């Protein structure tokens, strides 16, 4: 048998056709499958070009991103709670506001002290020495200044 002969003979063999009954069944299955996909995905576009950017960004592991977001929410919540309690503690321990009259009286006192030179700094100043030292040339050995 010549090779070309066999090839030609084989090529001329008619393959079986697809059974007619399958057409309706397969197309019905395809029709059912198509809307299921659209409903399941909602507004999400099936082609990559129409997919929202944030879906593309989050896609690899949405659970992990959700976990990170939850952790940040917890941290923020704790921060807010702790900050509020600290502010309330600070407001409780602060002294009451000083009235304006007290400040005025205090200012008056300071002014009087300055006039009398009886301020606390003035009282601790050493008294002036009464002995006037002689020139060094007039000093005698054994004589000490008081």
């Amino acid at each position, binding site marked *: *048998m010549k090779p070309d002969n*066999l090839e030609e003979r084989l090529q001329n063999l008619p393959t*079986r056709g697809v059974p007619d009954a*399958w057409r309706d069944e397969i197309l019905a299955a395809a029709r059912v499958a*198509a809307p299921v*996909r659209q409903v399941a995905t909602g507004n999400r576009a099936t082609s990559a070009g129409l997919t929202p950017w944030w879906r593309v960004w989050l896609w690899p592991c949405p659970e992990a991103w959700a976990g990170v977001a939850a952790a940040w929410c917890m941290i923020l919540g704790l921060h807010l709670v702790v900050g509020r309690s600290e502010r309330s503690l600070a407001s409780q321990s602060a002294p009451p506001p000083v009235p304006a009259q007290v400040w005025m009286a205090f200012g008056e006192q300071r002014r009087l002290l300055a006039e009398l030179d009886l301020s606390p700094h003035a009282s601790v100043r050493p008294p002036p020495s009464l002995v006037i030292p002689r020139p060094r040339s007039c000093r005698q050995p054994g004589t000490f200044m008081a």
Partner: protein
Amino acid sequence: MQSADNVERLYDTHASALFAFLLNLTRNEADTRDLLQEVFVKLARQPDLLAGARDERAFLLRLARNLFIDQMRRRRTREKNYERLGREDCPLFAPSDDPDEAAFRSMVSEAMDELPAEQRAVLHLKLWAGLTFEEIAATLDMPPNTAASRYRYGLDKLRHLLRPLYDEIKRT
């Protein structure tokens, strides 16, 4: 969006070729039906699947072959000897009124069953889908030289298997 009309058009245009190819690969009519349905369900679900395809027929044959490989992998995890168990005596060719021709077709069908799946796929695409070696190579993910050599080996094996019958037909 891939409309239902478009899926119907694709079915009417390519279903016969896909059926023959899948039947040759699976040698089982039920599996062929499942895979053929899977192809068109996939087309309905993914409307832009054929958007970048230059040749619809080649693309669909490739898709069918990939689905067949997936099915084989799934099956092999369950039953190692599926390739033998799953096959049944299903003819690849249309029946003929001529007894000699019918015998020849039956013999070819059986001989095809003896070939490895890779050679069977190449032979089918070359002989009955009318693809070139370049197209076969693109469809089956292999270099064109490999496709050509598999075709040659497959044809030689077929010739060897069919020789007794062919000689007998020639004598009578």
